């Protein structure tokens, strides 16, 4: 069960209060009725599904009700940051990114070989 920092409540809360809401920073096309079928499929269906750093949306649905953005490592499930909706994609601090990558390597090796120890 994750622990998520809600940028509106300014508090760490249990995942139970939240609902995941998909990849972040995918804007609905302005003139949506004019885009091509390919563009629509891209907008509606295609997601990065990153292994590693991902930007995603959550809603504090059983809390303040707000949607917000998060940067999370999908290998360790560690949150690097959360920030309010409407803000542009926030760069992850370099130190955190390094830490995340190190952690990713660690954990991935561990899981990849199901426990091959060093």
């Amino acid at each position: 069960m994750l622990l998520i920092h809600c940028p509106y409540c300014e508090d760490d809360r249990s995942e139970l209060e939240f609902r995941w809401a998909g990849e972040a920073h995918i804007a609905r096309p302005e003139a949506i009725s004019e885009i091509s079928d390919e563009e629509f499929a891209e907008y509606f269906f295609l997601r990065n599904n990153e292994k590693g750093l991902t930007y995603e949306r959550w809603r504090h649905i059983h809390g303040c009700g707000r949607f917000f953005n998060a940067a999370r490592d999908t290998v360790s499930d560690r949150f690097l940051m959360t920030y309010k909706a409407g803000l542009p994609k926030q760069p992850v601090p370099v130190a955190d990114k390094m830490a995340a990558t190190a952690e990713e390597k660690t954990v991935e090796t561990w899981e990849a070989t199901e426990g091959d120890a060093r």
Partner: protein
Amino acid sequence: MRKYSVFAIAREAIRAHKGWDAQWTSPEPRSSYDVIIIGAGGHGLGAAYYLAKEHGITNIAVIERGWLGGGNTGRNTTIIRSNYLYEESMDIYEHSLKLWEGLSQELNYNVMYSPRGVMMLSHNTHDQQSFKRHINANRLYGIDNEWLTPEQAKAFVPVLDISKTARYAINGAALQRRGGTARHDAVAWGYARAASDRGVHIIQNCEVTGIRRGPGGEVQGVETSKGFIGAKKIGVSAAGHSSVVMEMAGVRVPLASNPLQALVSEPLKPIFPCVVMSNTVHAYISQSDKGELVIGAGTDQYNSYSQTGGLQIITHTLDAICELFPIFRRVKMMRQWGGITDNTPDRSPIQGVTPVPGLYVNCGWGTGGFKATPGSANLFAHLIATGAPHRLAAGLNLDRFRTGRLIDEAAAAAVAH
């Protein structure tokens, strides 16, 4: 390949089992192959086997990041059924079920396919309408699936609580008698042994790090932790990591990778005769040959490659199991684990050609991959060998997300498992 039989066992029994061969070999990779399959799960190994057996292509490598059968093949709850709604789904799952029925003999490896029946519980009018829609479609398609009254369901599964006072009382059930379970590891091992016997190279502990493409965009081979390996054709069958591998070829696929958890109880004497699923309360359960109650839990809500999930997913599943089977409250959970499922927007798989010449993809099986193993492998082999999808898998193409011709089993029935 030395044939497995009771006589072989008897012979080995008297000489301390020293005469068994390795079930598969672990060769060093050649510099190139006709076909490389990425991912040595049941689907990938099976595709290699059928390529060799049915299409005469034996210069094949199956490349695996970890150990063969260690992904979702070895982590699922082993349910087999084919009573899906849409033709596209019925085609592939029924093709698969037919292959399951003869797989042990085909591979000379007991995969323990056990048609003990898969029962889906109906709790309300909506369930009933949906199940009857399935049952009727299945019947006209030649697939067994029948409606049971609560009493008939109880006769089939004596531990079922059919009292009217239950929070979600049961108003009937759909039963596919040919559905059941199989031994998951044995499927991977059986295909690996049979493929290896036909000359297929299974290369474990070898991570693919890139897909090399030629001037015309066509595939040329894969970069791996063991160096570059050339290939004329590449089939991607890397459940859990399909997005990552496809990205190496610059192809985006509409997938979300989510943790899916499962658990087993301590071993018990036989108490549970078949597979029971309930979509209304979100649970499915069967009992393994060892006696463990095998329970599939839900999917965590977020994308993750961590193969772990939250405890709340487990507790919610057990709530439902104990609601359906209150006598199990004193049973104990012995082990829980997680896998990564690749889910498409319409919860149906993708198997087909890609924009990259020579690159074929088989992914997005979500929670349904195990039951599809032989069928998917068989049709994937056809796709790779001929360059065009088999009739039975034609609808599973990538283009459906552009046209909107989805195969939305989930929307149609909320039957996701």
